[in-house]
Every structure is written in structure tokens, then in C-alpha cells.
């Protein structure tokens, strides 16, 4: 049996295992507290083996990271951001000069539709964790499974297995996890470098590796950190952090793309820009 076949089988098995968790967690979410009534923080929930129970429906408070990881003001319809980079301490991404130039190029109007998520490719890691759409976490035995509303998922084994061979490259990468105390540590490699970190085109390459740390601090809050190492793009590793908040609600279908009239509009803009350059 090939490694790929095993991976596919394992995925199918996990999905099958997840079914009871799905039915349990996607129904009967309880009722929200009355408006104005502050819900007291409950302690971290536990599984029978004592590990944190982080299963449930979450929305990250990504602080505008999907529109820039560094602190930035609102720009017309593009939201501002509080800045989620906690290392380096100045909150700036340590981009190499070529990356600075490429990122500036990616925000030109004629590249308004180049973000791969605009073409329904999955967001990659860590962006999947801060796109402004919810996710649902499942914990079948031996795995953590993250279902992202934007039609993506991550199946993270906790059994200590090695990563898939380096020659296999994936939009979401290959993730393996382990518990360090109450912190779920997820190590991701084998990324394909085709994703953007956000709509303003912050950059990762195929050399990207990510270590994520999910630490539940109460029953409804996970402190999320991700350290990205990518020596082709950055002069040093950097780390982002934000909370993930458990919410009432269910995942809804996002049939991307059913019909996107923007494509035609943005092609017009791109073509006009190219024609302008040709005239010059």
C-alpha cells in the first residue's frame, strides 16, 4: 500500500469516525445567555483521558489579519487590523527585499483577483485559522480534525507519525500534532508555497514550515500562536497570536464559486492596466 493510499484511507476513516462527533456537535448547541448577562468563564473541558476537550464551533478574532498581519489602518472597504505579529517585537514581518517588492506588486489594482482564495483554492496554514469564516474542531480518538467553513479541512494525527515525503506538496501542507501539557502543538510541512497569507499578498514560499500552538485558557477560548519559518522570504522566523472564541452556531455551506461576477470586472481592470503599460 502506498503512503498516499494510506493517507487517503486514514482520512476516510477519520471522517467516518467523525460522524458521531459531527451529529453531536452540529446539533443542540444550547441557548445563548440573555443579552447583557455576562457568562462566567468556565474551566477548560476535559476528555476522559484528561486532555483538553477543544471540540466545537469557533471563530477566530483574527484582528484583521486576513487584510494584513501587521497593524494597519482601514483602507476604503478593506478593514484595518490591530497587528497580530508578536515576534519580532516591533510587530513587523522580517521580509527580505525581494518579498517587499513582490508584496507591493500584489496589491496593484490589476492584481485584484490574484489571491488564490478568490479562485476557491484553500487558504493554507496559518491563513485558514484567521480567514473571517468559522471552523469546527473535532477530536476523534488519535486525531484533531479542523473543518473550515471555506471548504477545507485539516486532519491532524497525534500518533507521532513522521511527515509525508518532502516531494509531496500540498495547499494545506501535512500536519502532525502532539499535546504538550494543555497545549496542542501542530507541526506543518510539505506546503506548496502557492498560498497568500492574506488579501494584501503577504508571502510564503514552498520552504514554509509552521508550528502552531493552541492553548485553551477556559471552556470557550483558545489562545492561538503560529510561528512561521520561511528562509526564502524572511530573514528570521516570526510569530502571530490571536484568540479563537467558541461560538453558538453551525458551519454553513460555501459553494465557492457559484457565480462570481467580480471576475469579469477585475479582468477589465487588469486588461486596462496592461493596455496602459503597452501605450507607455
Amino acid at each position, binding site marked *: 500500500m502506498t503512503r498516499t493510499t494510506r493517507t487517503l484511507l486514514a482520512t476516510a476513516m477519520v471522517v467516518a469516525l467523525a460522524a458521531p462527533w459531527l451529529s453531536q456537535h452540529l446539533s443542540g448547541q444550547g441557548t445563548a445567555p440573555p443579552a447583557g448577562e455576562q457568562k462566567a468563564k468556565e474551566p477548560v473541558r476535559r476528555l476522559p483521558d484528561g486532555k483538553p476537550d477543544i471540540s466545537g464551533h469557533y471563530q477566530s478574532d483574527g484582528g484583521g489579519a486576513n487584510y494584513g498581519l501587521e497593524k494597519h489602518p482601514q483602507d*476604503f*472597504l478593506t478593514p484595518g487590523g490591530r497587528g497580530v505579529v508578536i515576534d519580532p517585537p516591533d510587530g513587523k514581518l522580517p521580509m527580505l527585499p525581494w518579498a517587499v517588492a513582490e508584496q507591493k506588486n500584489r496589491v496593484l*489594482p490589476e492584481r485584484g483577483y490574484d489571491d488564490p482564495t478568490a479562485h476557491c483554492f484553500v487558504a493554507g496554514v496559518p491563513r485558514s485559522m484567521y480567514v*473571517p469564516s468559522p471552523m469546527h474542531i473535532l477530536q476523534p480518538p488519535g486525531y484533531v480534525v479542523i473543518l473550515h*467553513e471555506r471548504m477545507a479541512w485539516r486532519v491532524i494525527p497525534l500518533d507521532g507519525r513522521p511527515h509525508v515525503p518532502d516531494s509531496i506538496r500540498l495547499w494545506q501542507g501535512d500536519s502532525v500534532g502532539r499535546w504538550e501539557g494543555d497545549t496542542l502543538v501542530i507541526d506543518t510541512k510539505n506546503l506548496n508555497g502557492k498560498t497568500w497569507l492574506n488579501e494584501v499578498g503577504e508571502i510564503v514560499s514552498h520552504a514554509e514550515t509552521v508550528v502552531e500552538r493552541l492553548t485553551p485558557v477556559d471552556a470557550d477560548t483558545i489562545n492561538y500562536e503560529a510561528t512561521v519559518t520561511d528562509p526564502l522570504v524572511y530573514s528570521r522566523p516570526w510569530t502571530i497570536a490571536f484568540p479563537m472564541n467558541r461560538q453558538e452556531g453551525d458551519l454553513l455551506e460555501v459553494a465557492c464559486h457559484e457565480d462570481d461576477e467580480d471576475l469579469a470586472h477585475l479582468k477589465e*481592470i487588469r486588461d486596462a492596466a496592461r493596455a496602459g503599460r503597452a501605450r507607455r
Partner: protein
Amino acid sequence: MTVVRALAAAAALVVIATGAAFAHHSFSAEYDDKKPLKLTGTVTTMKWSNPHAWIYVDVKEKGGKVVNWAFETGGANALYRRGWRKEDLAPGTVLTIDAFQARNGKPTANATSILLPDGKRLFAGSSAPGAK
């Protein structure tokens, strides 16, 4: 413009309070912040689609000519989470829409909010204001 900016700020607050908007691309590339609009017209079609939904509205111009405007909003699920319902937007419903017109000058705009006949205002979740 001040009013429009205030509405955008209000929309931002609502989005922050309610979560996800579905954004995909550069809005400043497609829409013009110098062209805010407030138009009243009659719904002809509501297209519940992802990643963005569209409302088509017949707007009568000063000379009496009727133009069918296309208003882009957030995705279907973002609208649903903000309280939009199919039955509120039947063809023939009269809406007032705040929006920014497309840079190409066509009757296309990015909606920030709509006002229903019963006075209820719904925010459009359009790619962006305040999405986090």
C-alpha cells in the same frame, strides 16, 4: 460622504459583533470610494450565491428611464448570519441601498447596507467593512 463613512463605520461594528464576512479580492480595485450612492428601487432578482451574493434592483432615473442596477454583497452565508431572509427580498420589494459604484461607471455597486420597507436595516457583509 460623511454619512456614508458613518454608515460604513456602523457596518464595521456590526460585522465585528457578528463575525464572518467573505472577502476574496481587492475592493479598491473594483469600487470607487469617491462614488458613494444611495439609491431606491424595486428588487428584480436576489441571487443567493457564494462567494458574493447579488441584488438586482430597477432604479428610475430623473428622466424616467429605468436602469437595472447590480449590487454586490457578502456571500450567502454571511447575509444569512446577518438576518437576511429570502422572503424579505421578493421581486417587487422596494429597497433603499447604500453602496459604492464600480470604477468602470456601469450600474454596478458594492452595497454596504439595505433598508427594507418596514424600516429594518440590514448590513451587506460586503467583503469588507470591519471584517476580521
